[in-house]
């Protein structure tokens, strides 16, 4: 009988490895919805920020990163103390974001856009959480591009606050509940003459998502494996809105540039991704890049506004 069992076990192993089950045969394309029944929001151009450049802080973290919550709290405090100059986005990427088949975790917050941003800077990262500040390299901060923890990032962030900018941004998003649709408008004004190309990236962020997070500060007797299943994740990236243009974004201003005080308008319909748990928690973040050096020139955000249908 032993021989029979041995052969059957070998057979079972063979059966396990000899089949590929394809769940999604073909990738769903990004659909640009044309909806003419509801209008795009208007932007209060008189009151947009034309004085300074706001600071984009892109944070790389993960649900398994037990040291991250402490540092994230410091980033949020910095943001609160400098309101509304800092705009934060949390990318769950890297080894601490991959949940695999670990039974303690069920929330996979990784995204295609986050993967695309994370991959090329992997060599720069000293650990998690790390942030990029306006996607700039700071000569005064040891020529760093990514900064590990608050003791590294506080200085470049605060130095970036209040800097002048050549472009001002206004963002607004109307939420059409019955269609799970956002009608998004971004308006840009040249506060000084711009003579080269600028690109626009628009992201869908969900704030205050309740899910598990490992936290080294927790008592293991109360939180097994030090996992808090009711942790509130802030500024979580859900998707790129203008993904059809790729991770470099849409051309907002072409190479011929834009004269001082001229306006450019950008609109798009966007179906809310299924990963979003609460549409009312969505924040639309738009930022303008200089493609010649990849640095952020301006950033703005707006909460969605539910409209009557």
């Amino acid at each position: 009988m032993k021989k029979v069992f041995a052969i059957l076990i070998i057979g079972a192993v063979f059966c396990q490895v000899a089949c590929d089950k394809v769940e999604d045969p073909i990738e769903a394309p990004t659909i640009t919805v044309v909806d003419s029944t509801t209008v795009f929001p208007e932007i209060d151009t008189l009151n947009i920020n034309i004085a300074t450049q706001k600071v984009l802080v892109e944070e790389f973290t993960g649900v398994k990163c037990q040291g991250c919550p402490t540092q994230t709290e410091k980033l949020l405090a910095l943001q609160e103390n400098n309101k509304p100059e800092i705009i934060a986005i949390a990318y769950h990427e890297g080894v601490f974001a991959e949940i695999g088949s670990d039974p303690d975790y069920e929330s996979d917050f990784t995204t295609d856009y986050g993967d695309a941003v994370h991959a090329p800077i992997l060599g720069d990262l000293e650990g998690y959480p790390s942030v990029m500040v306006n996607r700039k390299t700071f000569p005064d901060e040891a020529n760093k591009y990514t900064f590990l923890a608050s003791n590294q990032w506080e200085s470049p962030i605060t130095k970036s606050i209040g800097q002048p900018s050549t472009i001002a941004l206004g963002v607004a998003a109307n939420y059409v509940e019955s269609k799970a649709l956002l009608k998004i408008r971004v308006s840009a004004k040249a506060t000084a003459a711009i003579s080269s190309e600028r690109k626009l990236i628009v992201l869908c962020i969900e704030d205050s998502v309740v899910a598990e997070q490992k936290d080294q500060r927790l008592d293991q007797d109360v939180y097994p494996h030090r996992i808090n299943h009711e942790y509130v994740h802030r500024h979580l990236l859900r998707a790129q809105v203008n993904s059809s243009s790729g991770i470099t974004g849409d051309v907002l201003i072409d190479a011929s540039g834009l004269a001082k005080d001229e306006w450019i308008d950008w609109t798009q319909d966007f179906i809310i991704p299924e990963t979003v748990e609460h549409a009312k928690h969505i924040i639309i973040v738009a930022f303008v890049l200089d493609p010649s050096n990849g640095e952020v020139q301006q950033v703005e955000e707006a909460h969605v506004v539910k409209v009557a249908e």
Partner: protein
Amino acid sequence: MKRIALIFLIAGTHTIQAQEGLLENIQIHGNVDVYAQTYKPDSIISAPVVPQKSGMNSFANFIATKGSFSAGVRIESYMPPVQGFNPNYGLQPVGVPYRYARYAQDRLDITVGNYYEQFGSGMILRSYEERALGLDNALDGVRLKYEPVDGVYIKALIGNQRFYWQKSTGYVRGIDAEWAMNEFIERLESSKLRLRIGGSFVSKYEDSKVTNLELPLNVASWAGRAHINYEGFGLLGEYVYKFNDPNADNHYIYRPGQGVLISATYSRKGFGINLTAKSIDNMHYRSNRDAQLNDLFINYLPALSKQHTYNLITTLYPYATQPAGEIGFQGDIIYKIKKGTALGGKYGTTIQGNVSVINNLDTHRISTTSELDQEVYLAHDPKRQGYKANLWTFGDKIYYRDYNIEIDRKFTKDFKLKTTYAYLEANIDVTQGTALGKNVYAHIAVLDGLYKLGKKHSIRTELQHMWTEQHLGNWAFAMIEYGYSPHWFITILNQYNYGNPIKALQVNYPTAQIAYINKANRISLAYGRQRAGIFCVGGVCRPVPAANGFTLAVTSSF
């Protein structure tokens, strides 16, 4: 040609026993088969111009055995292939597509090289050869058979399949285990209750191709079966499941395939009854996802219709199994009326009845064929399932109906008569790919008489008629065969499509044949017209083109 001559030289001998050294006690046996036709254009029956004016398929098997070892080769020749056989056979006029070495001892049986194999009924795996169809999907690789204890049989194999003169790009791997209760449990050896249970797993690997789709490189299937007998009763059941297998047959859908076969039998002296039910859904399973026709099938789906022998039924409207989907049942009953009774007569009478009912599966499309052919993301069918179906529900499309009865009676010691009546309904748009747009309804009657004229002489006659208002209309068939025992047979036959709705096609298809049989050798020569149609064996069919000319057939075994 030297090799061909060698084949005939060897064929003329019988068992050869080498007498010296290593060759001592080696036994060699095998067989030779030559099938050749000549062609001349015949515009009336649309027989095409064949530039070579002839075709020949031939092969010779040579098998050498010594103790536990055996080895064999098959030499094949196509010069060029006979019309109706796949022209790919003509890519190499002569070659050795089949060779193997085998060792069997102490419950272990190993074959290296080519081999044929079948798991269960074949619904999950059947590698076989059917010469008349030009079908040969022999595996080339390694096969192990092992019986670890009495009553447990295990087979494992890997190989790629024959594809005319090439090999399939995909690999086939499989394992099968069967448990025979009455051999496993010694005290049940002579029990009236007989039970066999088996299971199989088969997987194919094939590299991907350039497409928008993410194709599974490994496609697996599994099957389970049980066969139970108690005295005259028998019950057999088999189920097969195939995982996502997008292929050219199913328009690259990812729907899994399924098949079920259930057969119940009862027999006692002079009486037998068999009921079989089968349902198939998306069970094209090939080692190349783009293969067509009968090429590179890993599995075989048993036929659910009677394998008739009479010309008009067999060649005009036979049923071809539909791996894409079909559901049906078949009933067979045979009853022998005792001899010496009023009904049975002096020598007894045998009555056979048979019913086949086959429909399409009840399916509900999610995507249209044209949508699937575009290989784009379909929001209403993101997983490309194609359609929904219930394996147990008949669709409303009739594929085939065959109700037939056969009465066989010997009237005197010199005269025997077999009478057959069959009613067919055939959806030849599905089975033959025509565009008739309606089913064919046909009544067929056959009288088959055999007269013995003394010890050596016999005459057999066949009269057949088919009535139908569809397709080619009515047909008549007559045959007379004179036998001069034990060597000679002379046959003259004619098919006449007198009911063809097109008067110019109301054509006769006469043929005359002479055959010589001597022990293991048979030689026949025929001349006549061959009607275009399809030819099927076990539900697997090939087209037969019209032809006019001589046909030579030689078979021999040694």
